[in-house]
């Protein structure tokens, strides 16, 4: 019996040992699995550490830098681990980045807006003061006869004009209007007006082969844009060189070409200039450099708003930069090519003017020679001695092109005869304005005095129609511009 006991013990031991072994193996497996999971988690943790360190040290600084520097769309680095990006953790990180960049952008916009509005109101006030001062200077120039006083006044006037231009430029850049509404003016006057506003106006030489008007709404912006181009040209060239301005007809517009003999621009500057001149990019006044470079940005804004084009990517024949401002036909009055259209433009600008200035019947004979002389007297480059016959020929298409004034033919009919009689004295000159305004709305049948009442009625209707038309033009224009 006792012999059986060890056997049983042995069996028991064997079973216990077996079970122990099983348990040990199982435990070992469990431990290995746990170890594996621990390793995995450790790896994931260090990946997250690494990711968040990357966020703090690389992506956020890149974001800050992108919002500070000019180049728009911030691309602040990618996440390190692509797998992590798909997890909730990665998405949360991305949300942090997005929100931060949104906050930065919003703050930038807000700061830009408030800076612009402050600058705009300040500059508008300065601009108004400069205009007021210009008026008083003009009055003083008329009042004082002493050349010494005039010399001083001219200098003050010059400084004031430059001051006004600077204020105007900054105001425009901040979204303001260019300011004054001017009458339609000949291109040559527009360029000379621009010349008036820069420091080295004596170095500007203007050659014009075109005699056309810039439409009223575009005068001031074009003056400002040309002034900025001239200022650039004059400032970046030697003081003893000339800046040449050519006004040249083009296919469907006119080019104002500014050539300087300066140092030119390198490729980087040219790219930057082209970018600003395009007017497409949003101007951030904090990024214009120090000192701020307003010129091209202002031109770009004006060009985009009024529909002309400016390029500075050519070399001038004198070694410097050739800047070209292209004015499309929409901003020009082609009519000036022909006969005596000026009074018509005057009537458009001030629709009321023709009626008070109607000429008495007796003046009719007198009128004709003046019309001839008047056409020649345009301050542009038109040849002074232009034959009235040629004008008579050109006037017909003009009348056709222009719907308003019914009376275009009348001035030419008369103009051939009296120009021969030409020599008589001052009397003719005395009432020039009346003559001009009379010429355009004159009756369709020039010879008969009987035709006057209907003709007068027609011209009044014409003036009214022109007035409403120009009013409508002006209002659509302002809306269009406001929309931009």
């Amino acid at each position, binding site marked *: 019996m006792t012999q059986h006991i060890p056997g049983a013990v042995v069996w028991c031991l064997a079973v216990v040992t077996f079970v122990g072994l099983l348990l040990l193996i199982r435990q070992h497996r469990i431990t290995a699995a746990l170890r594996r999971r621990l390793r995995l988690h450790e790896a994931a943790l260090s990946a997250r550490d690494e990711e968040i360190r990357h966020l703090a040290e690389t992506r956020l600084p890149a974001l800050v830098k992108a919002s500070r520097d000019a180049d728009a769309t911030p691309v602040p680095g990618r996440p390190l681990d692509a797998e992590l990006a798909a997890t909730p953790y990665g998405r949360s990180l991305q949300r942090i980045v997005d929100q931060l960049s949104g906050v930065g952008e919003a703050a930038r916009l807000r700061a830009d807006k408030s800076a612009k509005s402050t600058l705009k109101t300040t500059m508008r006030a300065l601009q108004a003061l400069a*205009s007021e001062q*210009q008026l008083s200077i*003009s009055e003083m*120039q*008329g009042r*004082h*006869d002493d*050349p010494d006083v*005039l*010399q001083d006044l*001219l*200098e003050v*006037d*010059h400084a004031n*004009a430059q001051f006004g231009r600077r204020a105007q430029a900054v105001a425009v850049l901040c979204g303001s209007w260019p300011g004054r509404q*001017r*009458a*339609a*003016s*000949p291109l040559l*006057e*527009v360029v*000379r*007006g621009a*010349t*008036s506003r820069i420091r080295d*106006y*004596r170095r500007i030489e203007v050659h014009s082969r075109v005699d056309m*008007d810039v439409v009223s709404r575009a*005068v001031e912006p074009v*003056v400002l844009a040309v002034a900025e181009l001239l200022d650039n040209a004059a400032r970046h060239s030697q003081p003893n060189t000339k800046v040449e301005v050519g006004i040249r007809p083009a296919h469907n517009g006119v080019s104002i070409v500014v050539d300087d003999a300066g140092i030119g621009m390198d490729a980087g500057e040219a790219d930057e200039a082209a970018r600003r001149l395009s007017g497409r990019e949003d101007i951030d006044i904090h990024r214009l450099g120090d000192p701020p470079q307003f010129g091209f940005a202002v031109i770009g804004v004006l060009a985009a708003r009024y529909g002309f084009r400016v390029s500075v990517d050519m070399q001038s024949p004198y070694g410097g930069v050739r800047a070209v401002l292209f004015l499309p036909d929409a901003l020009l009055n082609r009519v000036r090519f022909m006969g*005596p259209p*000026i009074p018509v*433009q*005057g*009537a458009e*600008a*001030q629709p009321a*003017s023709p009626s008070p200035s109607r000429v008495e019947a007796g003046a009719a004979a007198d009128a004709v020679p*003046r019309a001839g*002389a*008047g*056409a*020649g*007297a*345009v*301050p*542009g480059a038109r040849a*002074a001695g232009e034959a009235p016959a040629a004008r008579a020929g050109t006037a017909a298409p003009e009348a056709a092109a222009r719907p308003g004034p019914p009376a275009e033919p009348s001035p030419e009919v008369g103009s051939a005869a009296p120009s021969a009689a*030409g*020599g*008589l*004295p*001052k009397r*003719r*000159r005395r009432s*020039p*304005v009346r003559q*001009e*305004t009379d010429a355009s709305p004159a009756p369709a049948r020039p010879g008969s005095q009987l035709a006057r009442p209907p003709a007068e009625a027609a011209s009044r209707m014409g003036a009214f129609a022109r007035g409403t038309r120009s009013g409508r033009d002006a209002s659509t224009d302002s809306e269009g511009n406001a929309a931009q």
Partner: protein
Amino acid sequence: MTPSRPGRDRGLVRPYVITEGRAHPTRNTVDLVTLVTAVRDRPLNSLNPEKRRVMELCGGGALSVAEVAAHLSLAVSVTKVLLSDLIDSGHLTVRPPIPKAQLPDARLLQEVLHGLRSRF
């Protein structure tokens, strides 16, 4: 006669551009009532627009300096600079106003009148 007048904007082209920065006329004999007349057949190519206007204004006869200034909408002193230039370049001739001393004495005329009345 003044085609540029309706469209002319006085503030656009400033006087220093018109006179090229000069305020002193090259001659001081020009005053408000000096009469100027254009000399025909002078080349106008080299003249600026204001000077051309002057030549056209003065083409038909004599004009006083004040009248020219009014037609150009310029200050008289600025106009004097332009006119002096044109006189120097031979584009204009000057006719000074008739001096008082050369006008017949009013008393003399009165006496002639009385004489004539008593005679007839």
